Structure formats: C-alpha cells, structure tokens
C-alpha cells in the first residue's frame, strides 16, 4: 500500500482516495492508493504514460463508470462522503466535481449555449439568471472580454486556447467545488498555455484543483503539491518545491531529472 507522506499539509482534504484500486477487467491499473486533495490547492499528478494517473483522476468523479469492465475497490470521498453508495447521486457528483479534458470538446453550438447547457439541462429557464451565470462563468474562465460581443456565434470558431477556456467556463457554470483537469494545455501553444496556467492560479482561490500533466515543468509552475505515479503505484507525494528540489524516493528523482529506466 502506497501512501501520502506523513508530513501531510494540515489543510482540509476536499477529496480523498483511500486504498483505491482500479482495474480494467482482470488488469489492475491503479494499486491501492491513499491520496488527498487539499482544499483550495492545486495537486499535480505526474508520471510516465500508462502509470495510472488519468485512470486515478477519472475515478474521482466516477468517469471510469463509463468504461466497460472498469471496476474499483476502496473509497473515494468528497467532503468525507463516499462517492459510491453514499447519498451522492453520480450526476450531482459530476456537477460538484467537474472535468476538463486534453482535447477541448465544445458543443457545436453558440458560445452562450455551451456555457448555459448544464444549467438548462438541470431545469434552469430564467433567461436573466442564465445570462448572469454565463457572464460570470466566462469571466471566471478569463474569456469574457474576448467573447462578450459574440456570445451567439458558434464556439467552433474560437481558437484552441479559447475553446479550452470555454470548456472551463462550461464546467464553472454549474458551480463545482472541484476541477479535474486532464492535460488541459497539452494541445495548446505556449501563450495559450500560459493563460490557462494563470487561470488555474486564480481559480484555486475558489476551487480545489487536480491536474494530470506529462509536462513536468508545467506541474512545477502550477501546482502546490505533486504526486508521482509509476506503474500504477503512487510513489511519492509532497510539496511541489520538495519534489523538484529534493525528492525522497529514487524513482521520483530519476523521473524528474530525466534518468528513465
């Protein structure tokens, strides 16, 4: 059983995985992990391809449920409540724990419709309220100024970076508490990436964020804590500064310095 460093930050854990093991059919992809996401912090999950970091991330809002044959053991807690079998409905879970993907996936609708979609599906019809929420979400995603005069134009006309921020706005519209980001900037150029990273820095004041990234320097720039995964195991967790200046585990040291096997 791999576990978090004993020197855990004394911050409240917004989400927590306990002895979490995830399998695809007979293959164990993630082996007995204990990991907490401290509230209002950015936790980066790093590790080589196939190490289980994205699988782990998806477990936090039960996106693995959508993968045939995916099962898990152990617990995932949101504010101390079990996300499976507790009182938490899975749709409600995914509202509170939003997700942004590597390849941005705006709906083929207007910018406005994209952001309002989740609210409308939840039954919200009040036009004034919807507009107010759309504006607030687009501001929250640092996109409002760029699109405020063309809300009814198609989202498909936006640049890659703008589409990604639109997806973030869409997630923010339903007022989540946690944001899960799976390689959110890997398809973006350096300027768009910098804007996303700046946005993440602002967002953490209001949300708890977990980000999977294969870009170590991005993890170093953007996160407060870093968790290093390798072959389905959590090798080490700690303050990002420590992971990148003086990690405890040899495998972590080898990975961050580029001495792969």
């Amino acid at each position: 059983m791999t576990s978090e460093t004993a020197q855990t930050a004394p911050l409240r854990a917004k989400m927590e995985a306990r002895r979490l093991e995830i399998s695809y059919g007979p293959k164990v992809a993630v082996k007995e992990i204990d990991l907490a996401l401290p509230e209002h912090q950015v936790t980066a999950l790093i590790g080589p391809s196939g190490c289980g970091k994205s699988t782990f991330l998806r477990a936090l809002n039960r996106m693995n449920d959508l993968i045939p044959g995916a099962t898990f053991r152990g617990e995932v807690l949101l504010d101390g409540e079990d996300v499976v079998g507790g009182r938490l409905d899975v749709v409600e879970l995914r509202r509170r724990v939003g997700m942004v993907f590597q390849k941005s996936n705006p709906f083929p609708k207007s910018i406005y419709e994209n952001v309002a979609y989740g609210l409308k599906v939840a039954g919200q019809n009040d036009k004034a309220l919807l507009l107010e929420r759309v504006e607030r979400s687009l501001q929250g995603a640092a996109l409002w100024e760029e699109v405020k005069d063309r809300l009814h134009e198609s989202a498909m006309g936006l640049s890659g970076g703008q589409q990604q921020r639109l997806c973030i706005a869409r997630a923010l519209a339903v007022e989540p508490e946690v944001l899960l980001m799976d390689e959110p900037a890997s398809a973006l150029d350096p300027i768009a990436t910098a804007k996303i990273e700046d946005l993440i820095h602002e967002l953490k004041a209001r949300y708890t964020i977990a980000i999977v990234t294969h870009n170590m320097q991005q993890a170093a720039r953007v996160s407060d804590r870093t968790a290093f995964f390798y072959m389905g195991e959590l090798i080490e967790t700690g303050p990002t500064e420590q992971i990148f200046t003086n990690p405890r585990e040899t495998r972590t040291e080898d990975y961050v310095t580029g001495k792969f096997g």
Partner: protein
Amino acid sequence: MAKIHTDKAYEAELTALREQLLEMGGLVEAAIAASVRSVVERDATLAEQVKMRDRQINRMEVGIDQACRRILALRQPAASDLRFITTALKIVTDLERMGDLAVNIAERAVDLAQAPALRPHHDLVKLAELSQEQLKRALDAFVTGNADEAEAVLKGDDHLDALYLKIFNDLLGLMMEDPRSIRRATSVLFAAKHLERFGDHATNLAEMVIFMVKGTDVRHPRSRDEG
C-alpha cells in the same frame, strides 16, 4: 549502479561542468602551494608566476558561470541536477577568491624577498598545508558526493583558526621585541591571514557539498533564529 540521463548530450554537459570545476580546483591547489613556497624560499620569480597563472583561474570562473547559465536556460534542471548547478555557481566564486588569496600571498613574497629573511616559517608552512588539505578534502567530497567528508572539513577549520592565532601572537611578540622586524612581520602576518581566509573558503565549499548531496542548507547555523 548510478543511472545516467537518458539524454546523453545533457549527461555530457553535466560531466564537462564537473570536470571544469575540478580542473579549476586543481589550479587553485597549485597556486596556493606555489605562493607559500615563494614566501618561504624568497622566490620573487615564482611569485610572479603565481600572479600570471591567476588569469587562467579567472577565465575558468567566467567559463563555468556561462556553462551553468546555459544548462539552467536550456535544461531546466531539477532535484539533484538543480542542486549540483546551484552548488557549481557558488563554489566557482569561492575558488576564484581562493585564487586571489594565492596572488595576495605571492605579493607578500615579492615584498619579503627584497628584505633580509625573518626567522623560519615553520608554522606558516604548517598553516599552508592545513589549508591546502582542507581544499583537497572539500574537492574530494564534491567529486565523490560524500557529505561526511564535507562535515570533516567543517570541523577541521578549528585547527586552522587555532594555528593562525598562534602565528598572530608569535609575530606580535616578535614585533614588540624588535621594531626593525615590523615591516616584514606584518607581511608574514598578512600571508597567514590570507591562508586562514583560504581555509574559510574551503569550508564554504564543504557546506555547499553537503547541500548538494543531502538537500539541506547547513550554512550560518547560529544565525538561524530571529534576533
């Protein structure tokens, strides 16, 4: 079975940097040995050579700084690599200063060579040997990544300081006995002071080696608390 960087070019850059630092350390070791010999043997020619050779030490400081900056910019070193680069940046400064101290001693030699000999410099020679030994051990600790050896250098500084104090008191006594010796004795005293400073720089080096190996900064332990 130490792993090497997957990127062999990067591995080569780090190896080259390490070798440059050791080369510079070797030049400094040679410089201090020659400068003290020039005092003891009243050899002004040797003293002039020490001064000339310091130029190469200075050039190496510039070159090593540049190599470190290049690695920082292009490689974004992390963890042990980052500690190695930041250590290199610091110890290169100490080594350059140590080279300057050898020059300072050589200048005392030129001075002393022009006047009648003072009494034999046994203690000065001993002080020089201790200082050189401190540098050598610090450089060895750097190469082998041995924090214990570096700790030993830190402890060894007390011997150096004690011997310097003895030399100081002896020379003071000499000056009080015989005022005609004051000018020469002062030169020797300066040389001893330079050697004591040389030893201090060796301990700086050792502190940085401990940081490089363990990741803990052990400098200024008595200044840690506020006020």
